[in-house]
């Protein structure tokens, strides 16, 4: 191991866990001894990454309060020190941490809050889509082509399944309005997030739309989706309902293009 590498490892060990071996390498002066000088880096490391986490998880910070959030963030930093060149990715493992390691109360609820906020970050800077399908493009599809239709969705779209009403709580925390009571459902509800132009949009999906969009995203054609929807919808209505979903997704600017399998 090179001398320089050895020095860097000693310095980094100090930043991560306070190992004091590096102090012997640092010059002390009258106005600032080595310990104080090094402490500037030790503190800055923690403050910088806690602040970064607080930006990505602003609703979680508001919910927990600054002190509890900082304590949680410090423990997260110990378990998941950053390895990516961009600090944008530092918070990526917070939902995992809250699910598997966090020792506080409400872990399931907090994990869902974190997962929902990270989903917003993901949608925020997902790839742009310059050409999106419009309703008039749908009107041009011949009737006999509908059964084989498949869809391609834009990248700035995702969904996640949550037991708790965290989107409503986070929206209230972000906007400063009255925060609704926490509520847990017996079965998870699917929430869809997407970016329209530069703004993040979201809504919850009924179980049959949740199923349909997942099938459509995985390549199922219109006929297969109609067949699957029979579990919830009468045969006479099913094509209308499926077409209604498609129309809604196109109106929401979610669909890149149609294809025919």
């Amino acid at each position: 191991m090179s001398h320089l590498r050895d020095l860097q490892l000693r310095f980094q060990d100090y930043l991560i866990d306070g190992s004091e071996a590096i102090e012997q390498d640092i010059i002390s002066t009258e106005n600032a001894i080595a310990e104080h000088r090094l402490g500037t880096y030790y503190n800055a490391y923690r403050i910088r990454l806690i602040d970064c986490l607080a930006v990505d998880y602003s609703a979680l910070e508001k919910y927990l309060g600054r002190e509890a959030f900082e304590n949680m963030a410090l423990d997260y930093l110990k378990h998941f020190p950053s390895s990516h060149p961009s600090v944008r990715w530092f918070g990526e493992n917070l939902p995992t941490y809250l699910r598997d390691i966090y020792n506080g109360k409400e872990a399931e609820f907090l994990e869902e809050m974190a997962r929902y906020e990270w989903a917003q970050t993901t949608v925020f800077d997902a790839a742009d889509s310059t050409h999106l399908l419009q309703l008039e493009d749908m009107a041009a599809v011949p009737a006999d082509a509908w059964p084989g239709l498949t869809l391609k969705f834009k990248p700035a779209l995702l969904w996640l399944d949550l037991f708790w009403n965290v989107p409503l709580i986070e929206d209230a925390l972000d906007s400063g309005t009255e925060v609704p009571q926490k509520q847990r459902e017996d079965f998870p509800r699917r929430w869809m997030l997407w970016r329209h132009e530069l703004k993040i949009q979201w809504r919850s999906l009924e179980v049959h739309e949740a199923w349909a969009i997942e099938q459509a995203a995985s390549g199922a054609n219109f006929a297969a989706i109609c067949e699957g929807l029979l579990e919830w919808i009468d045969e006479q209505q099913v094509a209308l309902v499926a077409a209604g979903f498609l129309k809604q997704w196109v109106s929401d600017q979610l669909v890149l293009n149609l294809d025919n399998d």
Partner: protein
Amino acid sequence: MTQPSDKPFLGFGLGLRAEHYQDILERRPKNIDWFEVLSENYMIDGGKPLYFLDAIRQDYPMVMHGVSMSLGTTDEIDFEYLKQLKALIERIEPRWFSDHLCWTGVDHKNMHDLLPLPYTEEAINHVAERISRVQDFLGQQMLIENLSSYITYCEDAMPEWEFLAAIADKADCYLLLDVNNIYVSSYNHHYDPVEYLAGVPVDRVWQHHLAGHTNDGNLIIDTHDHDIIDPVWALYEETAKRFGPVSTMIERDGNIPELDQVLAELDQARRIAEPYYQA
């Protein structure tokens, strides 16, 4: 490799910050000559940051400034990072790109801080070789920036300016001389900042940074969250005397004020430096 024959002078610029995106697009101020953008903020797939970057790029020259190249680390060079940087360079065609003379982590960890190197021959050889490889990969010369630092190492064998100049010479790269950083480090390590300037080769310096900082009583911390103080303006005047026309910009990263307040500081930089440019 790109080898411009003359030192380009872009004038007086600002660090592009999200807080000012809308204002800049609406007003397109004429007294900002160029912008410096933080590379890592735009090494993403899409969305708002890239939208504003592209829109503002249409009206202003840009340079790119990175914080994560970690030129001094003893880990291997991160070519995945360099590929993303290259893609961004191709997207916005900056006049140049820069990063810091530092390391940011080792053993595949990132402390997201600009950590100082020891001023030794070993470090000169190590960093210069890595800069050369980066420049070869990206097909152009880069600028490296001097740090604000709060420590020095017992093993330092030369002053910082000799270390900086030796690396620039050995790697054949240019320098982004941060005037505030010289002031901060000279305060923290008790040397004469004008002596620092005298030790830096004039032809290598292509860009200056100016910024504010925080004094904790014993050390000055490079926080970029205050206005530029008078001693830094005075040092900038000395810098203009020695280096002549050098593209200068102001960095503001905390307590970010309205755009007009930063523009007032930029006008002050103009008033200080331009008399020496005409001499």
